[in-house]
């Protein structure tokens, strides 16, 4: 059985024309992660099902050598969330990390927000490479000296030590969400952030943990009338008053917090009418938006639903400006995907640094689209055929009919191996790709 993991990568526009053939170095393979990863300069943070956060850093000594830039090593590991039990509701709260977001760096320490279903935590990650030595009243092991034995005084000095990375929780933002948190997004004002669950969006101040403001509430008065839920939310990258949230019905709502305290009325509604010829049992499922991301310049939004990626212009509400069918060959498989629950997988998408290439996540494959040239290639990532620094060859999936040599038949795809999460380095063409248990980092070949 052919591994279901495929990676396809964006191409050409980001790279000099000499690299028309897609080649990617497999920089590192690590074990046992479900990744919600975010790049921050050389740091990549990942969160897993067990509530742990692992941060990777590029090797510093290789920074100057382009072809080795993508070597990432473990920088820090800490347990972010523990399983909890809500006694009032008799519900267990999973420790699984749903989202991680870095904060803009202000000093030597790094800050990130990580969230599970109910609680958001702000973590400070700081380095320590010096320690004080030469206390007057304390021995080296910490025991206090008898003052009578001290005959002279000295000034303690800082001596170098092995680098130690400490992660400490600075804030815990709890008890604000009745439903499961699905998104967090840091505002461009560097002071506030939003958290979204199925029916509500709350606005927090990073310094204040006992209060949050509810800015969106779509819970109907009568729950029988519930027809849609919030699936993702994000602040605009430049306008601190603007945010967008996506719904399970495939709509996007852009809201302006200046308009009113409760942003139930959207400023803009982005919706594409459904194509009636594609109607099936699963139309509602595959039209549910699983991720929305603003472009870095703030002019576009990218949304991901099960079978496609759409690019929306903020100035045009009635349809997307671009639509990419991500894995159309799965359309005939929706029934079996429903049975094994794969149809409920929520795929992410991300922009690359220069907004030219959108990089949606796809279940078996990671597809990249060059928005300039509309080419895409499919690659495969698996432990069997991946060694560090190996160059990958592109693969093709054929939906049916005659299968050409080297093509993969859609029936042989293993749906248990899939890529859900991805992150793109803000400046370089390095992508991190997460499967159930593995993290792959790919870099465009540079030489």
């Amino acid at each position, binding site marked *: 059985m052919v591994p279901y993991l495929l990676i396809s990568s964006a191409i050409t526009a980001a790279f000099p024309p000499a690299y028309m053939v897609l080649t990617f170095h497999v920089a590192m393979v690590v074990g046992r992660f479900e990744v919600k990863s975010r790049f921050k300069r050389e740091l990549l943070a990942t969160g897993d099902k067990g509530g742990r956060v692992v941060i990777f850093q590029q090797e510093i000594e290789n920074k100057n050598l382009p072809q080795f830039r993508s070597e990432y090593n473990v920088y820090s590991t800490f347990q972010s969330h523990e399983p909890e039990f809500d006694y009032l*509701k008799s519900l267990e709260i999973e420790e699984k990390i749903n989202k991680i977001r870095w904060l803009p760096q202000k000093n030597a320490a790094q800050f990130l927000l990580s969230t599970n279903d109910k609680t958001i935590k702000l973590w400070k990650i700081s380095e320590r490479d010096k320690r004080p030595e030469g206390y007057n009243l304390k021995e080296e092991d910490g025991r206090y000296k008898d003052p009578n034995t001290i005959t002279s005084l000295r000034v303690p000095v800082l001596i170098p030590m092995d680098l130690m990375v400490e992660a400490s929780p600075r804030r815990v933002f709890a008890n604000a969400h009745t439903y*499961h948190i699905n998104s967090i997004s840091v505002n461009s004002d560097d002071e506030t952030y939003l958290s979204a669950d199925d029916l509500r969006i709350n606005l927090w101040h990073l310094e204040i943990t006992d209060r949050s403001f509810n800015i969106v509430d779509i819970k109907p008065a009568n729950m029988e*009338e*519930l027809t849609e839920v919030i699936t993702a939310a994000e602040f605009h990258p430049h306008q601190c008053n603007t945010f967008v949230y996506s719904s399970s019905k495939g709509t996007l709502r852009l809201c302006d917090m200046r308009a009113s305290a409760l942003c139930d009325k959207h400023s803009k509604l982005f919706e594409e009418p459904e194509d009636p010829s594609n109607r099936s*049992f699963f*139309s509602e499922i595959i039209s*549910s938006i699983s991720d929305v991301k603003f472009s870095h310049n703030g002019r576009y939004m990218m949304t991901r639903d099960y079978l496609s990626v759409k690019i929306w212009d903020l100035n045009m509400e009635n349809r997307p400006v671009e639509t990419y069918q991500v894995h159309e060959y799965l359309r005939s498989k929706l029934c079996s995907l429903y049975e094994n629950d794969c149809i*409920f997988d929520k795929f992410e998408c991300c922009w690359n640094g220069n907004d030219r290439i959108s990089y949606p996540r796809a279940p078996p494959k990671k597809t990249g689209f060059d928005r300039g040239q509309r080419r895409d290639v499919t690659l495969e990532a698996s432990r069997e055929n991946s060694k560090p620094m190996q160059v990958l060859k592109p693969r093709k999936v054929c939906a049916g009919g005659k299968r050409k040599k080297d093509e993969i038949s859609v029936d042989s795809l293993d749906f248990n191996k899939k890529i859900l999460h991805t992150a793109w380095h803000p400046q370089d063409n390095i992508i991190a790709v997460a499967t159930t248990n593995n993290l792959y980092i790919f870099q465009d070949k540079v030489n």
Partner: protein
Amino acid sequence: MIHTMECAADAQSLISISLMKIHNSRTQRGGIKLHKNLLVSYVLRNARQVYVKEKYAEIYRMQQYEEVMTVCNEIQELNPLDLDAEDAGDEEQARAACCGEEASLCGSACHRGAAQPAAHARTASALFGCSPLEDGGKEPDPSYYRSCCMEAAPVPHCDQFPANGSTHCNITTVLDLDTHVVTTVENGYLHQDCCCCDALQCGQGAQSPAKKRKVEFGFCTSDGEEVSDLTSARKRAKREDCSYFHLDYTDTSNISNLISIFGSGFTGLLSRQADLEQICSKQVLASLGAWTRAIVAF
């Protein structure tokens, strides 16, 4: 439109798969996931639409249209406000006779009713509109049906699912997460706890399903039995005996529990249907929406 050709058989399996998913979600770690269950309810609704449509098509092929019309016309002449048990019983039987296998859909549809008056009207109209070409909306009278309806004691905030003592009596606790209102329901029949019931109607309500079932089986072919089984599985007001469910469940009492905890469901899901032909299926779907209500409550 949903491609129904080869999907009718799939609709049935989709329904059972969806029900299993909803059932399993109750015991999942981390609590019920609202989004996933909302999507499952949409699939359930779609599958049910297709299934009901297919069954109707089958039924109309089997029955003479004139015969249906004649009997239905006779029924319409009956005074629906007459709560006399005998008449009601006769009416029930006549209705069952009229619609034949349809009774399994329409008749039991009337037994379900809904928590909202609008749904009651639809129930009544659905009953009279057992011929799809007839506009059942003209003669609604919910009073009789209310006796059989799951008109819960109005509990403003929480999702109350009235239940009755039955042979499969289990206690289910329902909690609305936001208002923290806890309600305890007993699974099983739904009529007896109906606040609109008096003893007479309750007794009648309890009887009529039994009568109904007899009538049904009298009219049932093997397919019809399957229909009644399957559709009854999807209805809120359950027949007395869950053993009639021939669905592929290993634990039918769990399913009956699942079924009975639902109140009237996502009315928003019903809003799309304007097709007269689907008036009866509207009722079917009213109960279908009910399934998901308990999920929403969590």
